[in-house]
């Protein structure tokens, strides 16, 4: 539970840190729109190169970005195979008859067990998974013994491969861009930027200031509450509530022993916070000034020009 981190801001001093959060949010929207305008592989590769160059300019460690990609790795793999299986246009590259029978089913079970064991021991990183896929392919295609239960055609088309690579690269770029935003912007700055950008919504009755306040309080308190949850868990484990064992009835009791103190502490905290805010003269709905207001600087103009330029380039390519 300790590993859940809301907002992945890492202190630093590159180009992106100097930008106004409003600029970053707008620029990322603009860049994403441009990205979706791109149609061919070459254009996308150019975009990828530009994304990498941006990272280098911002002196952001690529390792960190790749680390940030880890949680959505499953999504990437899923997207990849989804495209390969269901896009059936272009030249046929591979046509393989696959059959499920006693032998291949057994081999699949064996391969799955092997893969899970390797994954449990955390050996070889992604390698066991690739080997597993290879084994699946081989056993489905070439192993047959006894009666065949079902058989099907495994087909890969040229366009399918191209599209899957295309979509995955596009996703990669989008995630890289948003990681740059969250990595280089403090959560508080991010909400302040949102608040200012959403100001115009006041006309349709949405108060962006209150919205921003709610978000910043949540951001501020989520780590605190998690920390507290961790302490409660330890305190109850100390009394024998080992959350990893026990029957269902005991489990329910253990969860209650966690939740009750959680709520009590959360309510207490919220009351304290409300008192602290009121004692500093906070009145809901009244306009407030700020000590640090956001100001656009030279860097922001540069960033605007660059992103507008890229959008223009993307549009131009599509038109001609």
């Amino acid at each position, binding site marked *: 539970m*300790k*590993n859940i*981190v809301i907002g*992945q*801001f*890492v202190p630093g001093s590159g180009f992106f840190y100097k930008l106004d959060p409003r600029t970053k949010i707008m620029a990322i929207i603009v860049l994403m729109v441009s990205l979706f305008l791109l149609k061919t592989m070459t254009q996308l590769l150019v975009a990828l190169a530009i994304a990498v160059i941006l990272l280098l300019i911002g002196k952001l460690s690529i390792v960190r970005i790749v680390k940030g990609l880890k949680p959505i790795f499953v999504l990437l793999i899923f997207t990849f195979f989804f495209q390969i299986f269901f896009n059936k246009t272009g030249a046929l590259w591979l046509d393989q008859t696959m059959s499920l029978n006693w032998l291949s089913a057994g081999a699949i079970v064996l391969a799955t067990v092997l893969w899970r064991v390797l994954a449990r021991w955390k050996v070889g990183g992604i390698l066991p998974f690739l080997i597993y896929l290879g084994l699946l392919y081989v056993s489905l295609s070439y192993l047959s013994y006894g009666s065949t239960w079902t058989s099907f055609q495994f087909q890969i088309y040229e366009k399918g491969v191209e599209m899957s690579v295309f979509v995955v690269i596009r996703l990669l770029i989008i995630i890289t861009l948003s990681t740059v935003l969250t990595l280089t912007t403090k959560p508080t700055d991010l909400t302040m930027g949102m608040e200012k950008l959403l100001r115009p919504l006041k006309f349709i009755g949405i108060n962006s200031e209150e919205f921003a306040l709610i978000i910043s309080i949540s951001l501020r308190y989520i780590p605190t509450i998690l920390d*507290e949850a961790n*302490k*409660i868990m*330890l*305190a*109850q*484990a*100390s*009394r*024998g*509530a*080992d959350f990893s*064992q026990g029957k269902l009835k*005991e489990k329910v*009791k253990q969860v*209650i*022993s966690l939740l*009750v*103190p959680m709520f*009590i*502490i959360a309510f*207490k905290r919220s009351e304290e916070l409300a008192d602290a805010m009121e004692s500093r003269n906070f009145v809901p709905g009244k306009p407030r000034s700020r000590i640090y207001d956001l100001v656009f600087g030279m860097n922001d103009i540069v960033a605007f020009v660059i992103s507008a330029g890229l959008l223009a380039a993307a549009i131009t390519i599509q038109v001609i």
Partner: protein
Amino acid sequence: MGIHFRQVSHQYFSQQNSDYQAIYDITLSIEDQHEFICLIGHTGSGKSTLAQHMNALVFPTKGTVEIAGVLVSQKRDKKTDYNRLRKHVGLVFQFPEYQLFEETVEKDIMFGPLNFKVSPEVAKEKALESIRLVGLNESYLNRNPFNLSGGEKKRVSIAGILAMDPEILVLDEPTSGLDPQGKRQLMRLFKDIQEKTNKTVVIITHDMDLVYEYATRTLVLSDGNLVFDGTPDDLFRREELATWSLSLPQTIRVLKGLKEQFHLELNPYQKTVEEAVREIEKVTSR
């Protein structure tokens, strides 16, 4: 038996800040019986982290801890019954709010014993026994724990651990937030428990007067290092006290002041106020 730390280090991992090492290379042994240990050190020196190693709540990132003959190392071991270790070493957390959750004090105290598969009847008896031990009468058993005062909550949370019948009792800052009288009462209580049952008691505290008066052994942590392990009499004669962010007990401070101011021939190392008064009377009546 007992608890044996062998070169234990613990590092907290966090993604936002760089990883933080809370304790460094700690080696020490605590026996099951006869010890009254005070663990002291400035805030953030790693006292709570060390205490949480004593019943395997957290695992060392380097080194091993042996608790009641069971070796605890970096990883959770499926074969180890950690609940047995937690029954062997009872750890009371600093804030009772982290553990009180039942609608009556009695049920809350019974939670620990029931988790250790004690029958409900026996758990009830234990609840009664331990609520008396912590100096509350049995009328408290039917009260709602959330309507108690801070000091009473603290006592109930201690009773909740006592009811588990641990061999070693570890208390994280049990006296913080209490009035001076309550502090002394609680210390007296722990001393009583230790004398009656011979169980080892480990107490984290910032109160040097109590340390000097009650402890048979003191452990001092400074920036995550174990810098002293010995009797309080030795400790308060050490020159390095200030560098470890510790102060002298009131009795020593007053007597030292008197000694210097009036050039009296007195021994400033007196544990209690009564002893200090006697010492002053002794030298002034001469």
